[in-house]
């Protein structure tokens, strides 16, 4: 344990934490203004309840000694998570670092169900999901579970985070169903600069995500860092070229998306590949997501903010290419296809499929069980009014004048009205 590694991991953890507000802006900028607070709250709420349940339960299931499938309750309630060394850093800092991953992963899913899922149902869903899906999958790869034993490589979470969240997103989009006007009306981003702010802060935070996954401030962190710079830069360059060749215009929404795709692609590989391979992966990784985005919009699948195309395809491509490009000369360990170990590609593909199968199945079960207890989505009329007003009782942007203060003396009456309106929304809108 030494202060240099602690210093870096403190920063890395803070950086990853920032990614969740960043995601709130990335997603929030892309929805209509009547739904922006709801969309942002879908990320922000992960910073509260999800973080608490993770610290008290999820972390232990993922990282306490257990079997190949799941950890144990040894660390439940943070028992035994203290100042002692865990690698180069104190155990509780490792727990905090992992906590930031457990916060953002469920938040990623929200992109598939924005603008129509009921907030309470969403909150219940991600609480169950982080314990029931994220914790075991994290255990498989990083907690000494069977995917680790199998030799699957996932430096910072291509499968654990991105394929996992995107599969859940796909299932959730199908179970919750499309927005009522999907495919009928245009639903445009209300604030593209917010999406660009989100993309910029995500990139910044992602340095903590990837280079922090080295768990120390050594050369591996420097390698992961450099690759996290080069890969998305290349994806952005290639994406811009595609845009220019296809339609003649490089879009800002496209640029923000490209950055995220490039970051996703390099995530599983960051500490295993050479910088030149990172450039290659950034370029190759652009292709499936670019065309999937265009294709998806023509289908009936209302994956509203394209979690599947960006995180699912990006994560899977990255995971498999990790098996191609991993290079013992750089990683000091695992080799991939090019380095003479073709089997790694299959291991990688297998790990993707396993995560996909489990995440898809478990997400489906969670949502269907929840649907028995509460409606998952709002009604069509409420979609028209927007979720900010109906789910949160507030508006993102008010002109300020013309709202009538409910005076203390009238408060009881007004509260009556509020109760009507809100219980309506709390009920079954």
């Amino acid at each position, binding site marked *: 344990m030494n202060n240099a590694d602690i210093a870096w991991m403190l920063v890395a953890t803070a950086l990853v934490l920032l990614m969740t507000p960043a995601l709130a802006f990335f997603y929030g900028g892309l929805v209509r203004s009547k739904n922006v607070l709801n969309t942002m709250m879908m990320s922000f709420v992960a910073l509260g309840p999800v973080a608490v349940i993770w610290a008290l339960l999820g972390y232990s299931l993922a990282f306490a000694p257990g079997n190949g499938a799941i950890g144990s309750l040894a660390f439940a309630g943070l028992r035994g998570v203290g100042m002692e060394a865990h690698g180069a850093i104190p155990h509780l800092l490792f727990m905090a670092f992992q906590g930031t991953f457990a916060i953002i992963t469920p938040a990623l899913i929200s992109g598939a169900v924005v603008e129509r899922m009921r907030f309470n149902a969403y909150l219940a869903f991600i609480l169950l999901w982080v314990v029931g899906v994220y914790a075991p999958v994290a255990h498989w790869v990083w907690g000494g579970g069977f995917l680790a034993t199998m030799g699957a490589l996932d430096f910072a979470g291509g499968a654990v985070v991105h394929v996992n969240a995107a599969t859940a997103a796909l299932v959730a989009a199908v179970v919750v169903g499309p927005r009522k006007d999907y495919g009928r009306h245009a639903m445009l981003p209300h604030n593209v600069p917010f999406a660009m702010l989100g993309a910029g802060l995500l990139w910044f935070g992602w340095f903590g995500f990837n280079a922090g996954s080295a768990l120390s401030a050594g050369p591996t962190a420097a390698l992961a860092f450099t690759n996290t710079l080069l890969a998305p830069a290349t994806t952005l360059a290639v994406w811009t070229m595609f845009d220019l060749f296809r339609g003649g215009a490089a879009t800002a929404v496209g640029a923000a998306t490209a950055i995220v795709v490039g970051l996703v692609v390099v995530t599983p590989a960051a500490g295993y590949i050479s910088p030149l391979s990172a450039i290659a992966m950034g370029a190759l990784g652009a292709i499936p997501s670019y065309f999937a985005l265009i294709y998806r919009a023509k289908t009936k699948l209302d994956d509203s903010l394209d979690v599947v195309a960006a995180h699912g395809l990006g994560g899977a491509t990255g995971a498999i290419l990790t098996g191609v490009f991993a290079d013992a000369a750089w990683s000091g360990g695992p080799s991939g296809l090019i380095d003479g170990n073709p089997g790694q590609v299959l291991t990688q593909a297998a790990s993707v499929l396993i995560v996909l199968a489990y995440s898809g199945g478990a997400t489906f079960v969670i949502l269907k069980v929840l649907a028995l207890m509460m409606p998952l989505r709002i009604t069509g*009329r409420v979609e*028209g009014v927007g979720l900010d007003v109906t789910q949160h009782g*507030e508006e993102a942007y008010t002109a300020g004048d013309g*709202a009538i203060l409910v005076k203390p003396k009238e408060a009881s009456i007004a509260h009556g009205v509020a109760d009507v309106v809100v219980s309506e929304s709390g009920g079954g809108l």
Partner: protein
Amino acid sequence: MKLIVAIIRPEQLSDVLEALFHADVRGVTISRVQGHGGEIEHVENYRGTSVKMALAEKVRLEIGVSNHFVQPTIDAILSAARTGEVGDGKILVLPIEKIYRIRTGEQDQDAVTPVHSDS
């Protein structure tokens, strides 16, 4: 020549525009407004402060038409903007005395007859 002013729900705007285009109305000016009518008022909460939102988002359409276009235009709006719930809005018909096309200076009837353009 009449000026038709319609206040509608924002979520009906796309439908209304399509209905107008089908009714061969090519010129329309819209603005984002807020309205108060018989709608249920939302109560919002900002920290300890409760407020009644007396105003709901609406869209206002303004269409200058020659007389024989008045009824088709109104019919198009009435059918496309109606949801049947309180708050669907109103249509007002006002007299216009004169109308000019700025580009050419044409007046009245000519000013609202669509020209051929390559879109």
